[in-house]
Each structure stands twice: as structure tokens, then as C-alpha cells.
């Protein structure tokens, strides 16, 4: 279907002897917000990292806008630069540990990749970058270094930085798990706005409330497979599978 931005088929990934993804089938439509829940070790992060080829899968297909990014031209020989460029300029990622560049200001963090990778002029990059940082509410922090920003502020810079590359899909890997509780809201609010603007998002998270309110679809993973998925109301209120029930029971404290 032309509407599918992402299609994962039979994706398997192992680390040494340990098989972390045991055959993942998943589709994400344009503009869809998919929240992925599950216990640690379920493979949620690994799946995200396969999508932007930080961890190339052993088996399976990943179609990004119809192109198989696991087997493009020059496949089978180490790093496939065609694929990587294609993927990483369409897929943005925000990390649990922020990974801001400490030797650069907030604005420089946002403008670095557009300048060096997309070849934008310094002025253009700065203009766009400023707009993005204002959009995430940090217009007054352009010249600050990450060490002077709170965790929540840093994460919002990270979001702006990823957005600066005009991605078609945004991946969020437990982006609030490392934050102090009072800083979580500002990041989730930013993500909510992004979703409302129609960004296609895959969000690995523990924030059930966010999933319930913002997600179009909730996916529950455990032991390297997708156990069940569906509308948030369905999966979260009336989980069909026992494993889902157990997990939600623990998380929601029922």
C-alpha cells in the first residue's frame, strides 16, 4: 500500500548467540503514531535501531517508502552507503541519553547536520534551527551549551536537532526514561504537538498515559515478538493476551 511509510517483514536480529528479534512484522502508515510497550529485553529498542540501520538485521525486509533498506544496491558488503544516506536522511532518532554534542551550543547542535550533510548554507541552517528551537520552546537558549540545560531542555533540543533534517519518520527510544519526573511533561508535550502536526512516529516508551492519549496504535512486545497490537483503548483497557495483561497489571498497578 503506498500509504505505508514503513513495513517490517520477518525481521530477525541476533547478538552473538542471543536472538533478540524473532520475526517482526509491522506496518506504519503515514502520519501514524505507534507506541511500543513491553518489558526490558523485549527487543523494543533493537527494533527501532534496525529501522535506522544502527543495527542491521540478520533476516527479513524493512521497506522504507517502498525501498528495501536491508538490500539496496551494494548490499551484502559491509556498510551500504546508499542505504545509510537514504535511511538516515528520512528517519530521525531521539535517544534516551540525549547524546547532544557537548562541545557545541544548542543552535550549533541543530545546524551541524543540515550544514554538513544537506549542504545548507550557514544562514539558512541558522534560520531553520532558530525556528525549530523556538517551536520546542527554547528560543531563548540558542547560545547555551548542553551542560547548562536541564534534562528536559536537552531532550527538546535533541528533538529539534532531529527535526532539522526534515525526516519523514521520527523514532523515539524511551526518551523520557532518564528524566526527572517533573521534566517529563515538557518533552511529552513537544512530542504531542509533533504528532498533531502529522509526523509519522514510532515511540518506545513506558508512559502509558501518553500512549493512551496520543497513539493511533499501541504495540506490545515481549521476548522478541509482537504479542498484540491495536487501538490504545483496546490494548490498554482490554488486553487479549495473557502476557499483555500481566505486563499492564504490573505497570498500572491494578
Amino acid at each position, binding site marked *: 500500500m503506498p500509504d505505508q511509510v514503513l513495513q517490517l517483514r520477518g525481521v530477525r536480529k541476533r547478538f552473538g548467540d542471543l536472538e533478540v528479534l524473532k520475526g517482526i512484522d509491522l506496518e506504519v502508515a503515514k502520519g501514524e503514531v505507534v507506541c511500543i510497550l513491553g518489558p526490558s529485553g523485549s527487543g523494543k529498542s533493537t527494533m527501532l535501531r534496525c529501522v535506522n540501520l544502527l543495527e542491521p538485521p540478520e533476516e527479513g525486509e524493512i521497506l522504507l517508502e517502498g525501498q528495501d533498506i536491508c538490500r539496496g544496491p551494494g548490499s551484502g558488503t559491509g556498510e551500504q552507503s546508499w542505504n545509510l544516506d537514504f535511511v538516515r536522511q528520512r528517519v530521525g532518532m531521539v535517544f534516551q541519553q540525549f*547524546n547532544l*554534542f557537548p562541545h557545541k551550543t544548542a543552535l550549533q547542535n541543530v545546524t551541524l547536520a543540515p550544514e554538513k*550533510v544537506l549542504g545548507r548554507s550557514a544562514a539558512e541552517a541558522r534560520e531553520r534551527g532558530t525556528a525549530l528551537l523556538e517551536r520546542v520552546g527554547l528560543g531563548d537558549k540558542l547560545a547555551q551549551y548542553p551542560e547548562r540545560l536541564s534534562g528536559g531542555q536537552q531532550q527538546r533540543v535533541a528533538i529539534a536537532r532531529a527535526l532539522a533534517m526534515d525526516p519523514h519518520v521520527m523514532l523515539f527510544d524511551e526518551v523520557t526514561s532518564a528524566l526527572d519526573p517533573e521534566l517529563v511533561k515538557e518533552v511529552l508535550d513537544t512530542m504531542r504537538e509533533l504528532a498533531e502536526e502529522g509526523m509519522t512516529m514510532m515511540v518506545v516508551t513506558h508512559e502509558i498515559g501518553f500512549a493512551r492519549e496520543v497513539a493511533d496504535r499501541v504495540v506490545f512486545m515481549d521476548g522478541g515478538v509482537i504479542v498484540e497490537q491495536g487501538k490504545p483503548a483496546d490494548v490498554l483497557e482490554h488486553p487479549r493476551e495473557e502476557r499483555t495483561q500481566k505486563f499492564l497489571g504490573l505497570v498500572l498497578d491494578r
Partner: protein
Amino acid sequence: MSQFFNQYFNFDVMREHFGEVLVGFLQNLLVFAVAAVLALALGLFLALLRQLPGKKLMPIRFLTIAYIDFFRAVPILIIILMISGGVPFLSFLPQEVRIPHWFGRPDPFWYGVAALVIVYGAFSAEVYRAGIEAVPRGQMEAARSLGMSHFQAMRHVVVPQGVTKIPAPMLNELISLLKDTTLVSVIALSESVLVSREVLSERLNSSSLTLTAIFFVIIILPLARVVDKLIARQQLKVTRGSHIEVA
């Protein structure tokens, strides 16, 4: 006891030969300056080679690691003697390379520099590596996720952060290099140790060697203090907010 004092601290001997020992010491400094610049460059080159990613480039990484391991292990004296004993006989090299007299410096100078660069290139490569590897992996991942190539990520994100960890250990290597310039005396470069030994056999007195030692101490002690201060300062630095330790 006074015999000891006379043998090592005869000020007359020191005074009379001060000039020639000083000139010799300047040779040490010159060897050091040339070798240091080249070794630092070679080390960075090797360190970057070693970081090249991908299965295809494995042979390059392997060779680089082999070079570094080998030349960290072999004593410099052996390398110096092998170069000076062997290179002049390599008939396929042109005369100016076999017996170099570049910039007016005699061939032992260049054999010595070559040996020191070969070995200290390996040592400094390891210092660079430690600096680069101290940069959290997440930095590379973030840069790559933003679409930067490996080279761009190294150049703009990893290496600039890596270099801050480098000065203290690198300075230690350089101090070591300065002392090791004395090894070139064994192939008859007129540096301070050789000159001192000449004085020793002439005057039957070791005070010239003491004088040489003093020269080295005067130069190196302040540098060693700088290293100590750099290390202390780094310990105090708070982790910057680029990443958070996840329990």
C-alpha cells in the same frame, strides 16, 4: 665521600665543558622537536586508520594494530641500530635517502629521528585511541543517525571531544621522547650524552654527565608538573550533559 663528590660534581670540569655539553643538549632538543611533530602526526593518522569501520576495511585495521603492537614492544635502541646499520646498504634507495644530510643535519640525526618517529608514532596512536574511545558511543550514534558519514562524524563530533582527554598522557609520551633522544648517541650523533662521554674519557671524571642530567631535569620537571596539574583538573570536571549514566 669526597671522592664521590669529585667524580660527579667537579665544578671545574663542568665549567670548562659547559659550552660543548650545552651545544650537545641543543642537539637533543632539535631531534626532539622534529621527531615530536612527526610522531604526533603519524600517531593521529594511525589512530584514525584504526577506527575505519566496516568489514571491507578489516585488513587495514589489522595492519595498523599489528604495527602499533610491534613498535610498542621493540626497544628503540634496536630500531636505531637496525636503521643505521641497514639503510645505507639498501642500494635501491637513492643516495640522498640512504644517507640523508637534509637541512645540514648528518645522517645519524635522521636515522635517530626516523626510529623515534616510528616508535613514538605507535605510542601516541594509543593515546589518541584512548581519547577517541573515551567519547561515549552515543555521540557517534547520534551523529550517524543525523545522516553524517563516518568521516564527518569523526571530524565534527568525536575527534573534537576526544582531543580534550589527550594532553596529559601525550605530554608524558613527549617527556619520554625527549629522554630517548639520548639513545641516538649510540650511532655517534654529537648530542649531550656523547659529548659528555668524550669529556669523561678525556678528564676521567663524570661531572659532565651530571651536567647533562641537570639540563634534562631543568626542562622536564616543569613539564611533568604541568601533566600533574592537567590530570588533577580533569578529575574535577563534572560530566557534561551530553549523556546520562543509565543505571
